[in-house]
């Protein structure tokens, strides 16, 4: 059947593209110019390596929601003689160093934030694994002419749950970081947004995946009915 071959080919392309994108994403995250793991972990690691015997304890905060009062940072080389370019930071990475023993509140807050980030990263990892399983299972079930399996529906629902949970955990970690760093900006020109940073895009995606699972479920019912029509 030609249509089945076309669908199978599409699923194979999807499978390969998914693998390549994940591999590239991981490589980019760990690369020196990467923006995810590099900033958080590599900076901390480099900091420890450059001053291993220091008595000070350092914290690096990645603040994603900063509100400046004005465009007050001149950008060098950003304009011509008659054009002046100024910036207002919206994202800020700050480094706080303090003597060992004075960091109890920072430590507990940061421990929870790191725990949530690690848990969220594990959830994202499991989402990728489940996506591999779902796409592989779809490919196999297309070959068997039995696409709408109950296991596929359950796995799709699981992806939705994990995506929303991981997104909320990342938001929780960012919120804890912002709350811990906010006192350092108390009298400065910048305000740290300490409201809970919901990632609406990911939550919407999770809900969309739930809707897809429901469509799968209805299709499974229709397919079963069609199979039992003699």
């Amino acid at each position, binding site marked *: 059947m030609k249509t089945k071959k076309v669908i199978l080919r599409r699923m194979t392309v999807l499978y390969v593209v998914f693998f390549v994108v994940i591999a590239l994403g991981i490589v980019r995250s760990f690369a020196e110019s990467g923006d995810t793991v590099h900033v958080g972990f590599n900076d901390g690691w480099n900091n420890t390596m450059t001053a291993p015997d220091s008595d000070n304890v350092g914290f690096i905060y990645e603040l994603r929601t900063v509100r400046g009062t004005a465009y007050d940072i001149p950008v060098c080389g950003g304009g011509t003689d008659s054009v002046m370019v100024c910036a207002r930071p919206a994202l800020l990475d700050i480094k706080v160093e303090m003597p060992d023993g004075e960091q109890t509140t920072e430590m507990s807050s940061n421990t929870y934030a790191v725990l949530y980030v690690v848990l969220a990263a594990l959830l994202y990892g499991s989402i990728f694994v489940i996506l591999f399983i779902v796409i592989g299972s779809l490919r196999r079930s297309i070959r068997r002419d039995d696409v709408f399996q109950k296991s596929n529906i359950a796995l799709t629902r699981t992806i939705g749950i994990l995506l929303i949970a991981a997104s909320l955990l990342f938001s929780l970690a960012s919120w804890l970081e912002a709350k811990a760093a906010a006192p350092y900006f108390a009298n400065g020109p910048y305000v740290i947004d300490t409201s809970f940073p919901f990632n609406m895009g990911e939550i919407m995606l999770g809900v969309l995946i739930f809707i897809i699972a429901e469509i799968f479920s209805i299709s499974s019912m229709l397919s*079963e*009915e069609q199979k*039992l*029509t*003699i």
Partner: protein
Amino acid sequence: MMAKRKMSLGELAERVDITPANMSILKTGKAKAIRISTLDAICRVLDCQPGDIIEYRPDTDE
């Protein structure tokens, strides 16, 4: 009706031109629906009316 006609399930399936597995689904009442063409073929082979082979039973869930 099959007993009256002294016909086995396999023979009826063969004459109606459906698989024995599907005929078994029909006989055990597991089928969700029946095509008019299938009903027509069964009635023709068994020489009976649809009412002789299907009956209404209220759903136990309702």
